C-alpha cells in the first residue's frame, strides 16, 4: 500500500525568510525521512509548480503588511486544515513591524511608499488576520519546536502511528 503523506504548504510573507532557510537546512538531515512522509503542495523556494488547494498543514512565515498578502493568507486559511505561524514575524510581527513604532514624522515620511505599494498602516502577526492552530516562535524558528509540531500533525493526520 502506498504511504499516505501529509500535504503541506510553506508560505512566506514580510520577513527575512530566516525560517525558510532553517527549513532548507533541516532537509540536510531529514530529507530521506520526510520525502516518504510529506507532499509539498506549495513551497515557492523549492518548486515552481505550486497550488493553494487541499492542504493539511500550512506553515506560514512572515508578517502581513499589505492587502494582497492579507487576501492570500485568508485564501491559505480557507484551503488548509491547520495553519501554523512560523518564526517571530508571523508569531509576533517583530521585527518586520518596525514601522508600527515609528514617530509621527517618520510615518509621514514613508506614507507615500505605503500608498504606492498598497501597504497597510500596521504590520501584523498572522493571527491578527486569520485564526491559527500553532506557533513555532524564534528568530529564526526554534528547530526542536518545529519538529515537535510537525510530529504532532504527522500523528493527527494518520501519517505515522500515534504512539
Amino acid at each position, binding site marked *: 500500500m502506498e504511504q499516505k503523506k501529509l500535504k503541506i504548504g510553506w508560505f*512566506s*510573507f*514580510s*520577513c*527575512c*525568510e*530566516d*525560517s*525558510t*532557510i*532553517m527549513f*532548507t*537546512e533541516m*532537509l*540536510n*538531515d531529514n*530529507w530521506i525521512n520526510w*520525502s516518504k512522509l510529506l507532499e*509539498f503542495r506549495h513551497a*515557492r*523556494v*523549492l*518548486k*515552481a*509548480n*505550486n497550488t493553494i488547494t487541499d492542504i493539511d498543514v500550512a506553515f506560514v512565515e512572515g508578517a502581513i*503588511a*499589505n492587502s494582497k*498578502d492579507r487576501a492570500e493568507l485568508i485564501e491559505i486559511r480557507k484551503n488548509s486544515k491547520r495553519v501554523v505561524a512560523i518564526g517571530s514575524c508571523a508569531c509576533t510581527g517583530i*521585527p*518586520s513591524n*518596525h*514601522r508600527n513604532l*515609528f514617530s509621527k514624522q*517618520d510615518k*509621514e*515620511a*514613508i*506614507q*507615500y*511608499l505605503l*500608498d*504606492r*505599494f498598497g*501597504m497597510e498602516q500596521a504590520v501584523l502577526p498572522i493571527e491578527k488576520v486569520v485564526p491559527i492552530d500553532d506557533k513555532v516562535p524564534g*528568530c*529564526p524558528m526554534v528547530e526542536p519546536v518545529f519538529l515537535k509540531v510537525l510530529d504532532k500533525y504527522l500523528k493527527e493526520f494518520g501519517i505515522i502511528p500515534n504512539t
Partner: protein
Amino acid sequence: MHRDLDITINNVSKIEGHTDLEIKIKHGKVEDVKLRITENRRFYEMAIKGKNCMQLGQMVSRICGTCSIAHLLCGIEAVENALGLKISDQVIILRKLLMYGLYLRDHALHLYLFMLPDLFNKDSLLEFDDTDPIQHQMVHDAFALKKAGNNLSTMIGGRAVHAPLPMVGGFAKIPTKAEIQEIISELKEVRPLMRLCLKTFAECPFKFERNAHYVSLTNDDFNFIDGHICSTSGICIPEKEYGNYLETILIPYSQSAGYKVRGQDFLVGALARVNQNAASLHPNTKKDAAEYLKLFPSNNVFHNNLAQAIEMLHSIDASIDILENTEFKPEPLPNPIIKEGEGIGVLEAPRGTLFYRIRVGGDGIITGGDIVVPTAQNQINLENDLKKLIQDNINLPEAALQFECEKLIRAYDPCMSCACHFLKLKWVDEFQQPNKQVDQQSPSCPLPPEPQK
C-alpha cells in the same frame, strides 16, 4: 512573427524573496520589461536610527535570512570604523572563516535547490529520480555540502542564521581544538563532491551575454571581507570610497532602488569576483579547477553559477588551510570608546558587494545610515538583460519564453529580502557626499512627490 503579447510572471519561484516580471511585446518588439521587486519594504535604514550602535549587527542580520552573516559582519565593521576601533588578526581570520561557511552553505542552496532543476528539466530537486545514479548523487551532494557550510558557520558564529557570537571588536567565543578537527574532517570529506558540481555547471548549455561591466572587492587571498573595490570600467579605490561611485536610480514600480556606476549598469557577485580576482584563489582550487578557470573572464551570465561552484571549492580549501595552520587563543572583547563618527563597512556577500555607511552620535546612538545590497545593484543590469533575452527569443511560445526569463533571473541568484529593506538614500542631505540620484520615471507609474521635510 509580429505578435503582441503581455506576460506577467507572479512570484518567480526558486529565488530568495518575492518578485514579479511584466513583459509587453508589440508588433514583435519588446516594448517594456518591468522587474518588480514585490517584497514589502521593512524600512531598516529608518529603524536603526535611535538604536545603540552595539546592537546594530544583530538588528541588520534580520534584513536577510540567507545572507544574515554578511549583514551582521558588515554592520559590525561599519560601527568599528565609526568608533575607530582596531580589531586583532585573529578576529579577521575568524570573520574570513565565517564568510567561507556562509558561501559554502548559501551557494550550495542556490546551485542545487534553485538552479539544478532547470538543468535536469525538473520542477524541483525534490523530484529527482532516486534510481538514477547521477540524480541520486546530486541530492546527496546538495545536503552534504550545505551541511558542511552550516557546520563551519555554526562553529565560528554559534549559528548559521543570525549568528550570536560575532560582536563589535571580536567574538564571544572561539572554537575548540576538537571542534576544529571535526570541521576539517567534514570539509575534507565533502571536497571531492565539488568535482561533479564544477563539471555540471561548466557543461551547462545555457548562454546569455550582454554587458561586460563588473564590480567587486579584490585582494590577494580571495577573501570576502576586505580589499579594494575594482571595476572593469577602471575604478580601483579603497572600499570606503565605494559609496561615492554609486548612482542611485529610483525605480517607481519596484520596492527597491537600482544603481549605476559611471553611468552604466553593472554586475556584482560571483561572476564579477572570479572575472576580476581568479589569480588570488587558493592554490589547491586553482589546481583542481584549472580547466574550468580557463572559461574566465566570461560574459556569460550563466557562468555566474560556475563561478559560485569555484567559490565553494575555494571556501573549502581556504578554510582547511586556515584551520590546520592557526592556533586560536581566547581574546577578551575590547571595550570601545564611544564617540561620534561615521563608519563604512564593505564586504562581498555571496550575491555581491555589500555597502554600509553608519553615523553614530557621541552617546553611541545611531543617527543615520545607508545600506546598499548586491541585488539592488544588479537590478538594472538584470532588467536590461531580460529585455535583450526576450527580444532575442521573441518567437518562442509564451511558456518557453517565460521559462527562459525565469532561468536567467535564477542564474543571478537574486535576494529580494535584502533588496527591499530601505527607505531611500539621501546622502546629499545627510552625508554631504556627491552621490547622484536619478529618477527613472515611468509614464505609466509616475513617482509621487515626496513629502516636504
